[in-house]
């Protein structure tokens, strides 16, 4: 599944593409799609936010984090979380629990 539109893909790639070392929008989107909609590898966790609109995945090993809207289906964002942010929340589990419970978006 793609980003919401080409503009969203472009600007998210511009902001986060270099953090993954990818060189094209297509490569970045494919990486995000695989992460959000592919099979989950063991260190990856998944949850739905209380709104039941956003589905989240977080890989605690490489800190990859993605959010996808489920109706309609598209990728909202995909980026590696800053380790300082994870530490500020008290570790990977606390960080992901916080993100899963967010209703202030």
């Amino acid at each position, binding site marked *: 599944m793609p980003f919401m539109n080409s*503009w*969203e893909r*472009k*600007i*998210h790639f*511009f*902001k986060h593409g270099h953090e993954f070392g990818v060189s094209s929008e297509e490569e970045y989107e494919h990486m995000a799609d695989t992460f959000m909609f592919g099979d989950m590898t063991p260190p990856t966790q998944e949850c739905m936010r209380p709104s039941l609109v956003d589905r989240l995945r977080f890989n605690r090993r490489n800190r990859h984090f993605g*959010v996808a809207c489920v109706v309609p289906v598209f990728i*909202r*964002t995909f*980026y590696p979380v*800053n380790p300082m*942010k994870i530490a500020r929340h008290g570790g990977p589990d606390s960080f992901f629990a916080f993100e899963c419970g967010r209703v202030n*978006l």
Partner: protein
Amino acid sequence: MRYRCPVCMYDALPYPPTDYHICPCCGTEFGNDDEDFSHEQLREMWITSGAHWFFGNPPPDWNGFIQLYGAGFILLSFTGFIVLSFRGTETEIQKESGALRTINKFEYSVPFAGPNQDFWLRRSVAERGSHNP
């Protein structure tokens, strides 16, 4: 429908400043960056990094400082040079060869031609008494 960025005050966001949309002006990703920092902190970080346009081409004659000034987030006064004041930090901007240039903190230039710049200069002159007696 256009929306205003609560960080840089760019008023033509194509989407609301929520749900991981990214401001093309300051680069703030809403839901991500503003979970780490307040809008005020992000604004200060954007200003101190030069208030550059983030993504794509800016609108014609766009200037980040003038955008913030128009929204009331920075003060400009005119006394032969311009003093830009932000949270106690002052940056002098002097007119040289038809342009304004910062002389400390961060680089900033405004081409001094066209009706918009004249308008801002007049507004700055009008505020001389209140900000720089």
